[in-house]
């Protein structure tokens, strides 16, 4: 088992290295095909035509740096059944390639490859045999190579591709469930559904068994409050940022105009080699059902980018480094206590490994980590977000950052939802675990790195996914769902959860979100252990005043009793 995993890891590493090499060439405007083009322009013409059976497809989403879109990089493994046209050097080292041999096809096109596993395909491309990387020899099919293609000649047996757990809908009648929904070629949607105590929780994440899974999750909660107000609130992790907390306030203060802001880099997480879901479980704790689930992305690759492009070695680029994060996991615990529901999310960020800087001064020493979240809020009545008791809207906020430890969503005087932050987080250095206080802040849209905005386009539309749910879940707002997306610029509340001490080590943190199922103007009764919710200032003042009154009474009584007890009750003489 371990050997298989090691082999798989090695294969992934090899494929990534080859793809990285190709992408690096592209990034600096040098394509491997073009590089040979300079030597001999005739090489642009495809020189290899084969037929074969698709044995495997390994695909990867890669952000094309400095561009808005993703590129699909794929490696298709084909077992040759017929070589129709072959170049002279069509061989692995000394061994000539023939029928029955496996050959790789590197596919770097803007559209998805149409073929699937077991399909019979015809490949017309250019045989690339870099002298220093013999294992990466592939038939290259690329938009840049004229008339190259991968064409499906006959479809193979697809029955194995349908996972046993795959379905097209979510059983909304069930109390809780997990499942996968096919969502396009090679991509599935893994969901967790909870329908308990009149509230529904839906968690989505993309994954793929053939792609490196994209890192994208969404957690939403739907419920009805009194007066038939329907509420849907969700959030998603948009961006990870590394910042220098020079002013010591714990949160990143941006200034992208002058470039003197605290955000040093931001991460563009690309994809993950491993996707491990933890199905939802129901556990009874003190007669209250707790639902727990989670997902873990292993070996996450991504880019460390400057907030604004810089001139490095004569090339203007935002790329600071290529990095890997050992894992990224999200765990959730949901329960309803009285009329209040609690969603406790656990975030684990693995340590940075394989740090490949593209400039000498790139370093994560002394920097903090900030996780930028966007929210989606839909209600059937006008709502307001309050931060530190004041109305707040990220779209129009004047201050770039507003430090806070909680944010509330109100309709009129009724509190519908509460974000509670600022618990301690654990930092895992090699020397051991350390505990620090996290910080949080509401952020203006303008406080998001301008180049990062290119990568935060509404790539993932939540609305279309939520429509998978039957309309009877969303009684009144189903008409609004098609317009629902995760575009951060439409978010009225963008917030950051910040870890001022980080240095690239792994960390773990548990923020809490609270929803109010009925209108409430008072704090929830009996908050869960660990919540920082305390008495209000008015309550503390009332306690102090009552205490002073009691103390005055006690002193009066003390004096009175002393006078009474001066006389012996039996003799009535002074003692």
């Amino acid at each position, binding site marked *: 088992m371990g050997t298989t995993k090691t082999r798989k890891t090695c294969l992934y590493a090899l494929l990534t290295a080859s793809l990285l090499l190709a992408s690096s060439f592209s990034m600096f405007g040098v394509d491997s095909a073009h590089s040979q083009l300079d030597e001999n322009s005739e090489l642009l013409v495809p020189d290899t035509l084969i037929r074969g059976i698709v044995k495997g497809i390994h695909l990867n989403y890669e952000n094309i740096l400095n561009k808005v879109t993703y590129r699909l990089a794929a490696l298709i493994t084909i077992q040759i059944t017929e070589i129709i046209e072959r170049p002279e050097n069509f061989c692995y080292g000394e061994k000539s390639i023939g029928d029955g041999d496996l050959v790789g096809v590197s596919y770097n096109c803007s559209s998805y490859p149409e073929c699937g596993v077991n399909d019979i395909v015809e490949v017309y491309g250019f045989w690339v045999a870099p002298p220093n990387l013999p294992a990466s020899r592939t038939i290259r099919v690329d938009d840049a190579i004229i008339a190259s293609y991968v064409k499906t000649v006959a479809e193979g047996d697809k029955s194995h591709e349908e996972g046993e757990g795959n379905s097209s809908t979510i059983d909304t009648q069930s109390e809780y469930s997990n499942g996968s929904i096919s969502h396009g070629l090679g991509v599935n949607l893994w969901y967790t559904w909870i329908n308990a105590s009149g509230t529904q929780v839906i968690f989505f994440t993309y994954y793929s068994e053939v792609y490196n899974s994209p890192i994208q999750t969404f957690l939403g909660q739907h419920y009805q409050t009194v007066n038939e107000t329907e509420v849907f609130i969700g959030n998603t992790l948009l961006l990870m940022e590394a910042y220098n907390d020079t002013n010591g306030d714990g949160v990143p203060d941006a200034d992208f105009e002058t470039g003197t802001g605290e955000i040093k880099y931001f991460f563009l997480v690309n994809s993950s080699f491993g996707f491990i879901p933890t199905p939802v479980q129901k556990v009874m704790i003190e007669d209250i059902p707790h639902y727990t689930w989670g997902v873990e992305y292993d070996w996450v690759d991504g880019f460390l980018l400057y907030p604004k492009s810089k001139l490095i070695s004569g090339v203007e680029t935002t790329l600071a480094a290529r990095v890997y994060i050992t894992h990224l996991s999200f765990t959730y615990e949901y329960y309803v206590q009285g009329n209040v529901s609690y969603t406790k999310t656990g975030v684990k960020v693995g340590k940075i490994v394989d740090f490949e800087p593209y400039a000498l001064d790139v370093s994560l020493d002394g920097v903090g980590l900030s996780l930028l979240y966007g929210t989606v809020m839909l209600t059937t009545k006008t709502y307001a977000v309050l931060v530190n008791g004041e109305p707040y809207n990220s779209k129009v906020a004047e201050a770039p950052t507003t430090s806070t430890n909680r944010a509330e969503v109100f309709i009129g005087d009724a509190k519908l939802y509460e974000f509670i932050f600022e618990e301690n987080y654990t930092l895992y250095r090699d020397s051991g675990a350390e505990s620090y206080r996290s910080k949080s802040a509401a952020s203006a849209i303008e406080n998001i790195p301008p180049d990062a905005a290119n990568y935060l386009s509404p790539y993932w539309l939540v609305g279309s996914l939520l429509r998978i749910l039957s309309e009877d879940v969303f009684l009144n707002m189903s008409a609004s769902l098609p317009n629902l997306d995760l575009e951060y610029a439409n978010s009225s509340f963008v917030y950051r959860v910040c870890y001022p001490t980080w240095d690239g080590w792994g960390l773990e943190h548990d923020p809490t979100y609270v929803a109010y199922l009925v209108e409430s103007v008072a704090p929830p009764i*009996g*908050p869960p*252990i*660990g*919540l*920082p*919710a*305390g*008495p209000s200032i008015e309550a*503390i*003042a009332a*306690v*102090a005043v*009552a*205490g*002073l009154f*009691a*103390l005055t*009474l*006690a*002193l009066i*009584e*003390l004096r009175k*009793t002393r006078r*009474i*007890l001066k*006389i012996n*009750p*039996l*003799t*009535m003489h002074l003692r």
Partner: protein
Amino acid sequence: MAPKITDEERTLSELRGNTLLVYWYLLKKGRGSSGVREVQRALGFSSPSSACYQLEKLRELGLVSKNPTGDYQVSRVVKAGVISAFIFIGGYVFPKHLVYASATSIMILLFISLFIHALSLVLVVALSPGILAAIIFWYETLKVWRHKPSPR
């Protein structure tokens, strides 16, 4: 010129020693009545005549009345002296400070149990007058209880 002594002051000056003990006993009985022999046995008097003497003295002071069967019961409650520090309910007697002490203690404990997860210095400072008051009330309760009239 000697100060004029009111009836109440005269009553209080007479209400002492064994007279007070008998009155205390009858107060504990509440609306119930007691006979001479019962008082004698309960308070350990040497003879019924001693008990009778104290009861008659109380009757003359207007604090007890005698019913047709010859038993005595409290007709007027004097809220003065050590008696004022006690509450008599259904045959039970306890210091009135016990009510204050219990009330303040329950309030403080309830508040602490509700917000134990958010205890802070501000909260402790706010609670400190109440805690001090509770301590004083408990001290008073014990002190008064130890001084309640009882036969030697």
